[in-house]
């Protein structure tokens, strides 16, 4: 993986103002603390929100954010621009670590036969807020509107898979839907989201 290839064009024009993420990451690779702090300022809070949304434990969520950004700091060359934006890479890293933590915890609960001891869930369903999203910052409003625009059955799959960390098999088991239906709804939802979010692309 190198930082030299630029086959990818960011999907959204709504990039944070200032130096592009890719340029900051290049500077991080050269040991530029200021560039790292700028990336941290841009994405740490949303990373924290994503991790907390999945793991529901403040300390674990903070640890996930810390480990994800530590990886950015120590090994920025793992980013491959051919495979997407810095943002999608970073969010993917955080999501992956958080889902791992969720599934580890699920496995441990199964092993100790304490499945009933589920932690109380936090009522921060992002799709609950879609109606009142008018005053939110641009990108958040855009994404919430795109989620709100999905048919309910597609939004439910996205909700469970991305925001709750469930696998396709778990969703099929929990909802009683055939696995193929879960996958097809996921694809339809992603295509529709792509259409909505892509509308802002110049």
């Amino acid at each position: 993986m190198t930082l030299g290839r630029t086959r990818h064009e960011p999907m959204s024009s709504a990039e944070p103002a200032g130096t592009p993420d890719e340029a900051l990451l290049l500077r991080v690779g050269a040991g530029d603390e200021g560039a790292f702090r700028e990336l941290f300022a841009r994405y740490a809070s949303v990373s924290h929100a994503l991790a907390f949304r999945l793991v529901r434990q403040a300390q674990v969520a903070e640890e996930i954010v810390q480990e994800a950004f530590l990886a950015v700091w120590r090994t920025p060359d793992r980013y491959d621009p051919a495979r997407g934006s810095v943002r999608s890479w970073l969010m993917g890293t955080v999501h992956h670590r958080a889902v791992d933590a969720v599934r580890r915890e699920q496995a441990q609960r199964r092993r100790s036969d304490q499945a009933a001891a589920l932690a109380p869930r936090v009522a921060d369903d992002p799709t609950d807020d879609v109606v009142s999203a008018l005053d939110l910052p641009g990108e958040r409003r855009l994404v919430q509107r795109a989620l709100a625009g999905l048919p309910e059955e597609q939004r439910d799959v996205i909700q469970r898979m991305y925001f709750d960390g469930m696998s396709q098999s778990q969703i099929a088991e929990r909802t009683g839907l055939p696995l193929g239906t879960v996958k097809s709804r996921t694809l339809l939802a992603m295509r529709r989201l792509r259409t909505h979010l892509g509308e802002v692309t110049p």
Partner: protein
Amino acid sequence: MTRDHGLIDELLAVRSLGGLDGDDAALLERELAAHGDCDECLRLEVEHSEVAGMLALALDPRPVDEAIADRIVAQRQPRTEQRPDRTDAAPADELSGRRDARLGRWQAAFGIAAAVALVLAFVLATHPDEGVRVPGTIVAFEGAPGELAMAYTPGERGALVWGAGLPDPGGGKVYELWMIEDGNPVRGACLAPTEGAVAAYLDADLSSAELMAVTVESTDCPSAPTTDPIFTAELA
């Protein structure tokens, strides 16, 4: 010839949201491998990952302690620098402390010295003509249930791998250990657990590996992974 990307499109969509599991994970890897260096596959992968990457923006941002950035910056070490020996290293900060805490679970379960001695005995029994040095760095894998750890000396060949409480990989399946070099998996060794335990000497050059990963594979130990990793460990 135009290839059909319908299946790949669907599976990539699920993978981008972290939902791919079971046989579909291996199926996607096979399909992608069959397509080779395919621009359409890459385009679909990028599209889905970009959409997935934007979904997090729907959440209310959650403030982060700015001291985290300070701790991370303070963590930087040259990649060639050898990590201190775990047996006499004091945690430099909270992050190190947390890692030691995770390692502590393993230590409590087995005892590092006993485990290394066990593996060394195994290695000496199976490689009687080779000199074996006790490695100075121990990393704990993260991922599936159970504990898996590796001891090695950065810059030197060979590593000791051992684990306990590992799930059964299934009939006709083994664990396969990979060294990730510049993002590419390099075959390490196949591990067949006995009652959830493994102990092996990995006779390989780890100097270029940035990450170790373990997948579940068939007993013929394929030369490239066919499933997603269930364990990973970052190297110095």
